[in-house]
Structure formats: structure tokens, C-alpha cells
């Protein structure tokens, strides 16, 4: 029963606050949503103890949903280690963000609506991770997409926010198409959408193939690739990532919750959940590794050159998601989940910290207009340090354990793609450290670049905003050390139980514990050097940075303009599609269908009516003439018939 309460509490708070928000008042709405989420978080932690530590996995049925012939899909809450880990991450971060939003959105008129949307999102995300079948998973998947759309476009008076919301929704549609096709493919192979049925019979379908235009296609590989397209869309992997940076148009708590800690990790969860299937599709795993590694490096290089504080963190998120994906690609599912968990803490911390800075700077997001404020907001400053240290992978902080595990597992895979992923990952680790300190120095140090009015107004955030930061900071400091043994260490087999599946011989997490020392130490070395170089370049004022960027002008331009991917998509997809759409609306719909259809017929009718009323001349002899014509026509017809017969 705990599971049901944990999942449906956010739905209840959403329903109450959305329907009766105006009646309850802002205070009450904030209280109800926060209380609901905190309760849900407590329940999730209890569940974690019960399910993950004591091993009481279960499936709690909710109600019958679809029954059609042999086909069944019911609402249920699936509680195994994978889902409770996700639940804990989601509810804890969500509770923090709810609390934080009370302070952050305190000047917003529609803050009640904002809180209810956050609860809706949390519910949808919980539905996703506790799904027992593909249909419910798809429900949650689309639910978080909807909530994301609503929250990105929350400030709907801003044109850019509306555009970003639509962009997120439309780009995700491409991914969702892949996911839907993947679900269809799995149903075709297994004849079921139930996870248990699918996972139990994977082995006997491992040689199944499809015939497609004369090609033999390995069925499981196809299914996995299609699922991965869905994962790419949701988790902003290279190709379908363009919506994530733009999604920063949403309020900062949204960015922290949805676009850093939870929703964007749905893709990781999906692949991890389907580890029993992916294990039999090595080619698909290879693709996952390549895409993940490329995303990690590409996003990091872009993040290095951005000036919007939230965008830097957004690209950082994308880069870290790349890490998780290549961990999945080398079968290190536990490592990926570990990094997902630690990342959720420190990235949410960074986002909320950034939000705190933005709050202090009167909604300024451009780092070029910040600087010199660390003494004024020391707590936020400290929090940002903790987050950045965790992100860079400095020992004792959470990121150190998980990121190193990911890199080591990639190396331990002993394959071409694993090696590539390791080296790209190490490079990205260097860049990560670099842009993290670039961010800290540009934001907090140096001379103040904001105007005096803003500077005079700089203040530390209220308690409701600093408390969540503190909670997340605890996670960012301790989560790595505490959970290392459970997630990827000696206890992992017992911990994960049946939730994750690795073929014998593919166990890279085990192999990762036995890699050479240089493999383990390189990430730390590059991270420290990244911090040092960033400090050298930006600590001496902006001049040196400007010099470097001029020196490497073509590369800098490429990075700064995000590899021109947006422009490429605009030219290749957007423009032709809009042109095609315009063609269809203008010529196809308005001219053809409307012109020949409704409007045209109406026009012809009116014309015909005009003609008919002209025949009505008013002259009696015309009338008599018409009668005679009619008479003669009928008689002629009769004669004609007679003669013909």
C-alpha cells in the first residue's frame, strides 16, 4: 500500500490544488503541495528500505485498464530496486523544488497553478518509473512531456517561453514516435506488453528476425534502437537535444526538477529497465555508447562557451546524460543508475543555486553582467562550490564515485567503442571542470559588472530557498560515498536483484574494480587541471579569455553556435516542412478543398439561384412558354421511350 500512497499523493494534491486553487488561496496551495510531496518522499524512503534493502519486490495492482481479447494492460505499481531508486530521487528532489518554489515564485501571480503543475509532473514521473507494462510507461512518458510543456511555457506572456515549450514538445514527438514504434515492435515479438512476460522470454527470441524490404533485421536490435530513439528525445541526446537548452526559458525550479534531475533521466531509466532485452542486442548497445560519448563531449564543448548561467548548466546536464548513456552502452547499468542518482542531487543543487543567484541579481541570467557578489551571498556561493566540486568529480564528493565508475567501466569493456567512450569521457571531464570554474569565477568573483541598483539589491535568499539547497548539498556530498557499495560495489548483486540484468561476461562493473591505476587516476588529474586552467584564464580578468577565444576563433565559433545544429535543423527540416505546410493550407486546403468544397459549392448555389430568379421574369407569356416547354419535353420523352422500346 505504501507504493500506492507514494505515487498517488502527488496526483491528489494536483487535483485538489488545480481544481480548487482559487478557493484555497496561494498559501494553502503551497502548503498542500509541499506537504503532499514531503509525505511522498518519506514514503519513498521507507519503500527504499523495504524493497531495495530488504528485497521485498512486489507489484501492487491499482485497477483494470484495458482488456481486449488476449490483450491486457492494467494499472499497477511495480516496486523493485530500480523503481524505488527512481522514486526516491524523484520525490526527494521534487520535495526540495516544491519548497524552493515557495520562495522563488513568491512574486508570481499564478504561483498556485505553478505548484499544481509541479505535482502533476511528479505524479506522471512516478507513474513512468513504477509502470508494470509498456502502456502505463507510455502514459507516464507522455504525462511528463505534457507537464514539461506546461512548465516551460509557464510564463506564457513571454514569446520565447511559448516557442521553447512548443519546441520541447515537438522535438519530443520525434522521440515519442520512436518509443511508440519500439513498443509496437516489442508487442509484435513477445505478444505482450507486460514487463515480466517480456523479460522472461527474451532468451528464446534472441534469434528472431524481421523481413523488411528484403533485409533480415534482428528483431531485438530493432526494438532496442527504436526504444533508444525515444530515450534520446526525452534525455536530450545528440540529434534530439535541441530542446533542452531552450527549455531553460521555464522558471528555474522547473529546470532543476525536470530538466536536470528527473524527466531527462527517463531515457536512462528506460534503457536500464530494458537491460534484459538490450543485453541480447549488442549492436544497439554499441550505438548507445557512441551516441552517449559524442553527446558528452559535444555538450561539454558548447557549455564551455555559453554566457547564460542556466544554459551552461543545461549543457552540462546534457553532457552528464551522455556519460550515463555510454555507461549503459557498455552494460554498466548499475554505474549509470549510480551516476543518475548522484547527478540528480548535485545538478539540482547547481540549478537551484543558480536560481538563487538569479533571484539575488533581479532576474539577470547573463554571467557577463554578474561578478563580485560572493561576499553578499555566501551561502549560495558555498552551495555552488559543493555542486561544482561534485560535478567535476573531486574526491569525497558524490560525482567522484559515480563518474569515475562510469569511466572505468567504459575502459573495462575492452572494446573499440568502450575505449572511445573512455577517452571522450576523460576529455569531457576536463572540460566539465573548466566550465564549472569558469561559471563560478564569472558569477561570483572579479569586479561587479552589474549596475548599482542591481548590486544594491543583491541579497541572500530566504530560508525556504536555502533549506532545499542544504538538503541537496548533503546528497551531493554524501550520496556517492554512502551508496557506492550498494549500487556498484560488493552488495550490488543483492541490491539490484532482478531489476537489472547483465549477461555473464558483460559485467563491466565488476571488471571496473580491477582496472590499472592510471585509468582510475586520469579523470581526477584532468579535472584538477581543468579547475586550475579555468582559474588561470578567468581569475586574471576577462582579457586572457578573450585572447584565447580569438586565437581559436573558428573552433570557438563552432562551439558558441552549438555546432550550428539548430540552424541545420531549421534549414533541413523546419523550412521545407513549413513551406510544405503552407503549400497544403494555401493550395490544398483553402483553394482546393475549401474552394471546390464548401465555399465553391456555396458560390455555385448562389449563382444558380441568381440565374433561376432571372428566369422568373414576371411576364405571363414566359411562364406559359415554360409550361409548354415542360409539356413538350415530357411528351417527347414518352415518344422517345416508345420508339426505343
Amino acid at each position, binding site marked *: 500500500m505504501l507504493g500506492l500512497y507514494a505515487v498517488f499523493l502527488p496526483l491528489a494534491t494536483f487535483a485538489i490544488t488545480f481544481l480548487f486553487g482559487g478557493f484555497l488561496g496561494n498559501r494553502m496551495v503551497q502548503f498542500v503541495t509541499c506537504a503532499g510531496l514531503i509525505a511522498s518522499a518519506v514514503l519513498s524512503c521507507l519503500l527504499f528500505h523495504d524493497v531495495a534493502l530488504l528485497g521485498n519486490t512486489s507489484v501492487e495492482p491499482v485497477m483494470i485498464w484495458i482488456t481486449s481479447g488476449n490483450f491486457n494492460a492494467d494499472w499497477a505499481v511495480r516496486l523493485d530496486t530500480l523503481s524505488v531508486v527512481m522514486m526516491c530521487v524523484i520525490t526527494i528532489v521534487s520535495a526540495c523544488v516544491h519548497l524552493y518554489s515557495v520562495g522563488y515564485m513568491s512574486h508570481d501571480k499564478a504561483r498556485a497553478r505553478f505548484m499544481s503543475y509541479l505535482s502533476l509532473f511528479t505524479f506522471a514521473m512516478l507513474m513512468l518509473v513504477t509502470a508494470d507494462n509498456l502502456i502505463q510507461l507510455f502514459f507516464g512518458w507522455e504525462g511528463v512531456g505534457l507537464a514539461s510543456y506546461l512548465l516551460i511555457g509557464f510564463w506564457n506572456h513571454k514569446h520565447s517561453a511559448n516557442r521553447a515549450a512548443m519546441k520541447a514538445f515537438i522535438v519530443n514527438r520525434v522521440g515519442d514516435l520512436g518509443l511508440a514504434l519500439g513498443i509496437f515492435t516489442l508487442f509484435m515479438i513477445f505478444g505482450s506488453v507486460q514487463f515480466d512476460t517480456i523479460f522472461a522470454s527474451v532468451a528464446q527470441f534472441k534469434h528472431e528476425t524481421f523481413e523488411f524490404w528484403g533485409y533480415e533485421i534482428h528483431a531485438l536490435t530493432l526494438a532496442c534502437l527504436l526504444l533508444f530513439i525515444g530515450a534520446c528525445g526525452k534525455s536530450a541526446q545528440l540529434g534530439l537535444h535541441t530542446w533542452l537548452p531552450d527549455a531553460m526559458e521555464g522558471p528555474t525550479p522547473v529546470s532543476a526538477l525536470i530538466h536536470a534531475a528527473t524527466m531527462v533521466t527517463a531515457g536512462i531509466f528506460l534503457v536500464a529497465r530494458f537491460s534484459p532485452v538490450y543485453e541480447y542486442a549488442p549492436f544497439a548497445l554499441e550505438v548507445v555508447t557512441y551516441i552517449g560519448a559524442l553527446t558528452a563531449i559535444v555538450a561539454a564543448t558548447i557549455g564551455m562557451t555559453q554566457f547564460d548561467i542556466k544554459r551552461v548548466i543545461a549543457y552540462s546536464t546534457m553532457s552528464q546524460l551522455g556519460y550515463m548513456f555510454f555507461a549503459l552502452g557498455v552494460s554498466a547499468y548499475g554505474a549509470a543508475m549510480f551516476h543518475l542518482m548522484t547527478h540528480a542531487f548535485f545538478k539540482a543543487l547547481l540549478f537551484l543555486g543558480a536560481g538563487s543567484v538569479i533571484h539575488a541579481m533581479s532576474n539577470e541570467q547573463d554571467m557577463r553582467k554578474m561578478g563580485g557578489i560572493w561576499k553578499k551571498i555566501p551561502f549560495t556561493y558555498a552551495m555552488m562550490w559543493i555542486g561544482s566540486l561534485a560535478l567535476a568529480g573531486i574526491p569525497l564528493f558524490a560525482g567522484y564515485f559515480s563518474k569515475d565508475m562510469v569511466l572505468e567501466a567504459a575502459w573495462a569493456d575492452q572494446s573499440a567503442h568502450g575505449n572511445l567512450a573512455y577517452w571522450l569521457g576523460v576529455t569531457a571531464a576536463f572540460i566539465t571542470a573548466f566550465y564549472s570554474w569558469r561559471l563560478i569565477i564569472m558569477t561570483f568573483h572579479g569586479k561587479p559588472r552589474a549596475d548599482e541598483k542591481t548590486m544594491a539589491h543583491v541579497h541572500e535568499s530566504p530560508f525556504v530557498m536555502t533549506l532545499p539547497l542544504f538538503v541537496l548539498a548533503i546528497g551531493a556530498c554524501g550520496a556517492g560515498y554512502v551508496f557506492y557499495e550498494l549500487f556498484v560495489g560488493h552488495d550490488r548483486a543483492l541490491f539490484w536483484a532482478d531489476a537489472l540484468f547483465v549477461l555473464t561476461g558483460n559485467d563491466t562493473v565488476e571488471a571496473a574494480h580491477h582496472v590499472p591505476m592510471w585509468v582510475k587516476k586520469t579523470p581526477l588529474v584532468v579535472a584538477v587541471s581543468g579547475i586550475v586552467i579555468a582559474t588561470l584564464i578567468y581569475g586574471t580578468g576577462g582579457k586572457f579569455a578573450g585572447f584565447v577565444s580569438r586565437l581559436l576563433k573558428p573552433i570557438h565559433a563552432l562551439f558558441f553556435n552549438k555546432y550550428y545544429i539548430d540552424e541545420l535543423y531549421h534549414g533541413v527540416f523546419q523550412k521545407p516542412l513549413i513551406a510544405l505546410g503552407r503549400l497544403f493550407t494555401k493550395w490544398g486546403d483553402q483553394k482546393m478543398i475549401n474552394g471546390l468544397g464548401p465555399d465553391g459549392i456555396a458560390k455555385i448555389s448562389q449563382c*444558380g439561384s441568381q440565374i*433561376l430568379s432571372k428566369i*422568373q421574369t414576371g411576364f405571363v407569356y414566359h411562364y406559359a412558354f*415554360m409550361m409548354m416547354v*415542360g409539356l413538350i419535353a415530357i411528351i417527347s420523352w414518352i415518344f422517345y421511350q416508345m420508339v426505343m422500346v
Partner: protein
Amino acid sequence: MMDMTTIITDLYMARADVFLACAALILLAVGVCLKTRAFHRIAIGGVTALVLTLIMTLQQDNSGDSITLFGDMLVYDRFGVFMKVLVSIGAISAIFMGVRDLGDHVIGKFEYVILILLATLGMNIMISSNNMLSLYMGLELQSLALYILAAFNRNSLTSSEAGLKYFILGALSSGMLLFGISLIYGYTGTTSFPLIADIVLIEQTDMVSMGMLVGLVFILVGLAFKISAVPFHMWTPDVYQGAPSSVTAFFAMAPKMAAMALMARVLFSAFGELHSDWAQIIFAISLASMALGAFAGLVQKNLYRLLAYSSIGHMGYALLGYFVGGFTGVTATLVYLSIYLVMTAGTFAMILSVRNKDNVAATNLNEFAGLSKKSPVVAYGLAIMLFSMAGIPPLAGFFGKLYIFKAVLDGGYYTLAVLGVCASVVASYYYLKLIKIMFFDQPSAHDDYVVAPSRLLRWVGVPSVLFVVTFIFYPDWLVYEATQAALSLR
């Protein structure tokens, strides 16, 4: 040779019609003597006479089988009773309308009522006719009364013009009718419907003579003129527009019923065996009427012209039942005609209630602008009538069309049904246009049209609305009566 006793018996059997004839003459005499309020008093007398006639007609119904009188000149059967009831309802409504429209007017002569009574008598004879001669006699009695009614407003140029046009064209159609009758007589040697039917049956085995078919065509043309079927409809818009409004209402109701009944007599009693030959003629004029009724109405600005086209279209639908033939087809037509009659009565009752300061009824569509605010009751009543005319469920008009199309589909004429529905869709445009004008348009500044409560609304408008709205709950009795009537028609 008939002896005296037979004549007296026959006169007794035909007592309803005899009574109506006498009542009309007596009322005429009384009316001349009355000095004041002649119109109203004679109107009361006229309605009483019609009601009594109706009662006598219905009594006759209980006697059962059909009987023939005056040497097979007239036939009294359930079909006749059914149609006579319709005609009487139309005539009574027309008198109510006349009281509202002409009663207080300079041209409000009491002869209006007498003419309606005489026309009704003519129609009753038409409905009962069993012989070409009684057919012609009834038709001419009715037509002569109608010619005068059309020109009743002798001070008005348009009314005189309407009367004259109707008279000339009516004479032409009567000529055709007579020519057709003479052809039939020439080829069969008889004018009696049953005898014609026998001869047709004999000839059917061999070959139907061309002359007889041509004669039938001429008769059909003469009758099609009366029900204003295309292309013999040309007089309709002009007469509807020119004649006094209450006369127009009468034109739209009673004569149509009588002519349709007469057509049924000719087509089914006399020439039933030639169904396959005349069906194509009916098909053509029915389709043309539906199409013209729908399309020509679209651009009309004058309400009466619009209603003229509306009635042309409705006759097209009614003819579809005859085209299908058999008792299902005739039943459908009878149901359709009954509903059409009530809808028309209701519509005119509403329209004639909208009058300006000079007590002149509204004639143009835009004079109805803003009626929903000035008189919501009438506006909603009229809207219901128009929706019903357009065939919107659950109103009676929908069921009328439903039975017609069901008969057509049962006959297997799918294309025709589709065309009919299309025409109905087009026609709904002008009904909806009037509703839109009533509810959404702003009246012009010097618009002084108002609605005063009247007997017309109370006795005609309200019952019509009730019938149209509640028909869905008890359609069976009407269908039953119509079926019985159709069955009695051989």
C-alpha cells in the same frame, strides 16, 4: 337512369358536402344583410360551418367501406376523409388568418370567408371525384374561387396582377387538363376511373396506346400546375407575393392537399397499372421541384417568394412517395402532407402576427431583424417551425422527410434519396437565414414591427408548435390513419 329515391339517398350520403354548399350560400345571404362587423361574424359562421362539415365527414368514416354516389361520380372512402380533414384544417386556419390580416382592413370584405368555403367545397368534390367530369367540376369550382381570392385586394396593383396571372395560367392548365380528358375519353370511351382502370388492365396485356399516355401526360400537367411542381410552378412566387398574406397562406395549404389527392385518384385509381410509365414523369418533376425549391430560394429577400420556393420544394418531396407507389409510398406522402400542412399553418400564423403600426404584415426578411428581443415567444415559435421545415430532428418535419426517404430507400432508389437529402441541405440554408436574422441581426432604426397577441396565434400558432414539437412522442396514430387511407385507395 337514377330514380328519385337513389338521388335522395345519395344526397344524404353526401350530406357533408351538401351542407357546406348550403352553408356557404346562407352565409352569403346573411353577410349581405349585416351592417357592422360583417367579416368577423361571417368568419365565425364560416368556421362553424367547416367544423360541422368536418364532423359529418368523420361520422361517415365510421360507416366503413367506400361507397360511390351519383352514378359513380363521387367516391367516399377513408382516403377521401383523410384528405378532407387536411383541407378543412387548412381552410379553418386560413379564416383565422383572414380575420387577423383583413378583418380590420378596408379590403376586409366578408366574401373572403364565402370564397374559402366555396373553394373548400370544390376541393372536397375533387378529393371525392371518381370520374373525369366530377374531377373537372370540383377543380373549376375551387379554381374560380382561388382566382378571386388572389385578386382580393383590388386596390393593390400586385394583388390584381397576381389574380390575373393566376387566372390566365390556370385557364391554360385547365385547357390542357380538358384536352387530356378528351384524349382519354377518345381512347377508352369512358370518363369513369374504375372503367378506365379496367380498360388499362386489358390493354396492358397487349400494348398501351400512345394516345392514352399522352392524355395522361396532359392531365398530369394540369394537376402539376395546381401543386406548383416544376416546370409548371412559375406563377407561384408572383402569386404568393402579390396576393394578400392570408390568401397566400390558404394557397400554400388547402389547394395543395386537394390537388395531391386528385393526383392520387388519377394515378392510382385510374392508371395504377401504368405505374412504370407515369413514374418517370413524376420522378422528373419531383426532382426538378426539390432542386429548384432549394436553389431558387437562396437569394430571395421577400419572405413570401421564399415560402413559395419552400412549398415548391416540399411538393417535390411529397411527390417522391407517389413516384415509389404502392401503399408505403402513398402513406409516406400522406404523412408528409399532413406535417407540411401543420408546419405551413404555424409558420404563417407566426409571420402574420408580425405587423407594423399601419397593421401591415412584414414581407421582407430584414423586417424580422431583432424579433427575438421584441417578441421572444413568436421568434422561438417561428424558429421551431423553420427548423421543422428544414427537417431538423426531433421536430415533425424530420419525420415527414424520414418516412418519404424510407419509402424511397425501400423502393431501392438510392441515388434519388441522396439527391433529395442534398436538396434538403441546400434548402435549410434559407430557413436558417431567417432564424439568424431573427436572433442575431439588429433591427433598422425606423423599424416599428411588433407582435400583438391574437386569436390566430392562440388557435393556430400554439397548436401547430405543440404538434411539431410533440410529434416524436406519438407518430403512430398519424401513420396508422395514413396507412388506412392509402389502403382504401385500391
